[in-house]
């Protein structure tokens, strides 16, 4: 496969017949008609995907009694923001504080990954040095180790460093993964050699080449990695459940678990919590959908 790491323009592929000219005008009515059964199947699947999300959103605007109503109805009656107000005023479950914590953790870890991984990727993709293959091999080997192996010892290390119950615990260890390095390395290998060569002949050092040439050229890959890193930090669950201990320090994912315990019968409130945790990533997804999907496909198949 060629290095089309992040190409915004090549999404759907053409396997159905037809000349290029006809494709540009869009499919013929006959071809559309032939595909009706496929549309029906896909739309049914889409309803299965979307309906639960809509149902949860609607439930978050219901009163407790309405959420437990039989038979359940999709439309809230009456429509109320009560669940969100209850959450805002809760001292034990400060969800808006969790929201800020999640935002901060996601931002810090993303910046850290971008800096550290882009430097390492540049070295592995564009520089030659003794031991390079050994380093690369070591990174590949550790990818095979399941995450749970690191759980207990990472906890012990974080505790020794005094990072338990702090932002450090949920930002620094998670930035040590090799995914970002592989992802950026793959992109940087595909960059043309000539510009870098010319700069080197002009006397530019590696650091200037990295800063002024490689980084700007890598912008699309960096943007994709930023989005993917933020998503994975925002959604991380197991680790923060165990390293964050007090109510004000939690992030949204472990917070939701607390919320479930505290309001197990108040479905409106729990669903409002889920909506608060879901909306930012769904917005991010809506904005960067193609970057996320292409990034995951290339990261998985070539990383």
């Amino acid at each position, binding site marked *: *496969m060629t290095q089309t790491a992040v190409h915004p323009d090549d999404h759907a592929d053409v396997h159905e017949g037809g000349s290029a000219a006809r494709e540009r005008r869009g499919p013929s009515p006959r071809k559309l008609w032939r595909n009706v059964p496929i549309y029906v199947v896909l739309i049914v699947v889409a309803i299965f995907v979307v309906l639960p999300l809509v149902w949860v959103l609607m439930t978050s605007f219901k009163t407790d009694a309405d959420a437990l109503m039989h038979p359940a109805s999709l439309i809230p009656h009456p429509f109320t923001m009560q669940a969100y107000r209850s959450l805002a005023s809760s001292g034990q479950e400060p969800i808006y504080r969790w929201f800020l914590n999640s935002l901060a953790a996601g931002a810090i870890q993303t910046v850290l990954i971008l800096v550290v991984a882009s430097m390492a990727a*540049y070295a592995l993709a564009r520089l030659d040095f003794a031991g390079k293959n050994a380093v690369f091999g070591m990174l590949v080997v550790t990818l095979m180790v399941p995450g749970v*192996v690191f759980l207990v010892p990472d906890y012990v290390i974080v505790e020794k460093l005094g990072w338990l119950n702090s932002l450090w615990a949920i930002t620094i*260890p998670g930035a040590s993964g090799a995914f970002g390095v592989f992802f950026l390395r793959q992109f940087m290998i595909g960059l043309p050699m000539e510009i870098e060569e010319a700069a080197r002949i002009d006397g530019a050092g590696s650091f200037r080449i*990295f800063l002024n040439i490689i980084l700007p050229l890598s912008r699309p890959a960096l943007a994709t990695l930023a989005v993917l890193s933020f998503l994975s930090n925002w959604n991380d669950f197991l680790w923060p459940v165990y390293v964050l201990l007090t109510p004000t320090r939690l992030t949204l994912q472990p917070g939701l678990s607390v919320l479930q315990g505290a309001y197990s019968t108040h479905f409106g409130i729990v669903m409002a919590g889920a909506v608060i945790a879901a909306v930012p990533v769904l917005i991010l997804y809506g904005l960067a959908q193609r970057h996320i999907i292409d990034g995951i496909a290339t990261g998985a198949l070539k990383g």
Partner: protein
Amino acid sequence: MTEATLAGGSARRTVVAGRPRRRHANNRAGWLFLTPFLVLFAGFVITPALMGLWISLHRWNPVLPRKPFIGLDNYKELFTPGSLTFGDFWQSMGATGLFTVLSVPFLVVIPLILAVLLNRRLPGIGVLRAIFFAPYVLGAAVIALMWRYLLDPQNGAVNGLLAMLGVTTQIPWTVDSPWVWITLVAVTVWWTSGFNMVIYLAGLKGIDKELYDAAAVDGASSMHTFFAVTLPGLRPVMAFVTTMTILNSANMFGQSYLLTVGHPGTSTRTVVMYIANYGLSGGQMGAASAMSYVLFAFLAIISIINYRLQTRESRP
């Protein structure tokens, strides 16, 4: 790749495989650029991987003043019927294995069907692809809580809808066997199918278009084309998806932790959930580390067997 490059210090052109390439040995710069990442990598990947082994050789409880070295006792205990951890550990391994066996076929096949259906240029296809992938961007906690509500036996929307269709019994989706397994598998399929689908779509792009043209010229039906062209062309991607899905299912945590809470009893408690609880909440870090290495060994063996099978199949 590095021949004749480390010998000379200055920039020079070498021709590798017919392509001009500049190679410039630059040891200091290379390691300097790697240093920040390597510090993190050494601190939170290499050290813990080795430290985990060390911990597993001790009776390691953070609240006790002494952490005596006990050799392989933690491991022996895991293989001694009737020991403190034997029953619970192997029950959780069994639950994990069952979940993996039940979920992987659906997670391999359903995304493949979706990808093949989506792999055509028609209006609206891009939107449908985006919709199918959307649940994957949500976190485990969001997924588990929303389905816990939707599948709630008394008040959930799913049983409500079923009641309208004439199903009068309340199905115990989140509390009783075998329904809990259907729930865990179905929710996982709903959540992560989009991810595998996207990988299949990328794989489908790699299949030579001329093969499809040839099949069309031969008058092959779309079913026949699928089995003669698409499936063989996707073989390596499918092997990759299968391996990755097995590993992901074997590491399942959030769904059991929040959706079924291990119920009924501890029957849906996965091994990752057990290790985390026993090691971190229970403070039995030595035993928990030993368990994580046993799990690692299991997964390594399964990956090797799986790889062997898949590569053998691909030879005609």
